[in-house]
């Protein structure tokens, strides 16, 4: 177990290093820079800028400097905003994105899983048809259309909720809904098919043969077994939520990390692009790792593969 964790951490670090190097290289190969603009800057100023951001150093030196700073947790200054650092942007933006993300994930799980379970138990009856219709809808309507629709109906027509911005719980409702629709739909469908498979298993018949009521058999034996494949999907779910947040944060004018990230690409704010990419990569890897640990904890077959006896 400890060896497995160490091995996983080592591969994660290697992958992270690869991502850093690749992103760094791409950033420097790509033409244009944050200070390239239609207006020609006076050469003196350009020199000044280049010196300040060490653009005159050889590339390998810039790279090792960057890695060195990174190891100390310093992602460098922003090119675009004079007095901001990448660390500062992440510190400001990430809590907002994380709050929104957690809301969306909770919503997706709290609605998606029960919907999937009920669908499977009422297979081919109206609760199943209804929730699968909604799931297909959530699956096929892109987040930004849903966001626009919600805004139009709930904020503009009905005036129930504030249309945008961030800070109050009421402002969180629409973005969380828009963000959770896709993973919710996916979870519902996944849980449904997983449940259907489990419900047909022999051990479910054994559970009933013991005298358990239908409800107990489903709760104790079916849900637990059906949920394991769903858990292994949670890592991907987190990634889906974060990519979704790039769009949703922009639509609802939420000062989250996703919004800064998208803006930094438009601004060619290299250090921000680089820093936030690395941050996201590390974060998602960590999430996947935690999910795998949880999976091992829940499914004894994964946990104890090497203890099998005959």
């Amino acid at each position, binding site marked *: 177990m400890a060896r497995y964790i160490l091995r996983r951490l080592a591969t994660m670090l290697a992958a992270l290093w690869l991502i850093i190097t690749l992103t760094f290289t791409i950033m420097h190969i790509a033409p244009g820079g944050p200070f390239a603009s239609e207006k020609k800057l006076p050469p003196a100023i350009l020199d000044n800028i280049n010196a300040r951001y060490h653009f005159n150093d050889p590339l390998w030196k810039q790279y090792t400097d960057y890695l060195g700073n990174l190891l100390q947790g310093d992602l460098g200054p922003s090119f675009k905003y004079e007095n901001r650092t990448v660390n500062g942007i992440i510190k400001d933006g990430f809590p907002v994105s994380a709050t929104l993300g957690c809301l969306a994930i909770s919503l997706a799980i709290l609605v998606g899983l029960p919907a999937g379970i009920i669908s499977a138990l009422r297979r081919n009856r109206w609760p199943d048809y209804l929730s699968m219709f909604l799931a297909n809808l959530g699956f096929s309507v892109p987040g930004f259309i849903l966001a626009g629709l919600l805004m139009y109906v709930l904020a503009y027509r009905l005036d129930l909720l504030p249309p945008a911005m961030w800070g109050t719980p009421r402002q969180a409702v629409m973005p969380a809904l828009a963000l959770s629709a896709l993973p919710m739909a996916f979870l519902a469908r996944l849980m449904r098919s997983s449940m259907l498979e489990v419900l047909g*298993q*022999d051990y479910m018949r054994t559970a009933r043969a*013991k005298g358990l009521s239908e409800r107990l058999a489903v709760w104790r034996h079916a849900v637990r077994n059906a949920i394991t494949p769903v858990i292994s999907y949670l890592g991907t779910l987190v990634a889906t939520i974060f990519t979704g947040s790039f769009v949703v944060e922009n639509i609802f004018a939420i000062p989250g990390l996703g919004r800064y990230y998208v803006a930094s690409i438009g601004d060619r704010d290299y250090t921000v692009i680089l820093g936030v990419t690395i941050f996201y990569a590390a974060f998602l890897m960590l999430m996947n790792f935690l999910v795998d640990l949880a999976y091992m904890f829940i499914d004894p*077959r994964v946990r104890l593969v090497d203890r099998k006896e005959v």
Partner: protein
Amino acid sequence: MEKLLEIDNLRVHFSTCAGEVQAVRGVSFSVGQGEAVALVGESGCGKSITALSVMGLIPSPPGRIVCGSVYFAGEDLVLKPEREMEKIRGKDISIIFQDPMTSLNPTMTAGNQIAEVLSRHSRESRDQIAARALELLKLVGISQPERRLRQYPHELSGGMRQRVMIAMALACRPRLLIADEPTTALDVTIQAQIMELLQELRGRTGTAVILITHDLAVVAGFAQRVMVMYAGKLVESGPTRDLFRSPLHPYTSGLLGSVPRLDSSGDKPLRSIAGRPPDLISPPRGCAFWPRCSMAMKICSLEEPEMTGDFTGHSAACWLMHPQAPGHRGVCEIGEK
């Protein structure tokens, strides 16, 4: 012998897209208190469905009990509401399924799976239940029982898993145990051990057992009475010795002919019955076995034979037993013209 279970004219159908499958077509038999009977027949003849009907576990839809009754200790289980059936399942009637690999929950320890049935049917404390679970594992002869309690099914061998299933089934001291091909999925050496265990436990607990199998070799040492099913019907039943020594139905003879015998010389090939069982969506008129029967007569394809038998309880449904049949078998008929 007092009757514990009495099945009367049981019919079970499954609706499928191809049509109505008549899985069980009017089966009647009874099992006495503490009696060991065997239900044998080729694959698909309705043995498991008969067993599941007794448990009230016919998957519905697509299955349903069309008619008939299942009297257990004097009460008709077919009419019992689900709530009442739950109290009987696992307590008064239990079942062991064929495949211990898939019949145990993979994410629950063996101990918890045994404890579950105990806590469902008794009000004992947690400690008492844990102690009982351990005792049961000892009873079914598992090595290192304390350790097994905490292990998951995938950590146990096939034989151990089937022992856990047996422990679970016997946990509440049922009056009737149905063993649906308990050894089919196991290695040959383990098969013998499991049958020995069942035999021993039956002797100790006095539980009535219905052993379902298509392996006649395991029947001989275990069951007092054998019932032979074919295409959803009983075709022959009788005391094990009589049935083995002088089978009345050509199907039974065929089955016995396909059992390997230790005393026969190796060069004699095993006979198996030619042909396949009929389609249960539209079973043939008359005797369902006639298309495969080497002794079929004209009447066999026209009319169904009734179960007829002698005073020893050996009976069969075959026109050859009719007094007017050529080479009529000398069984004294009861209720025959």
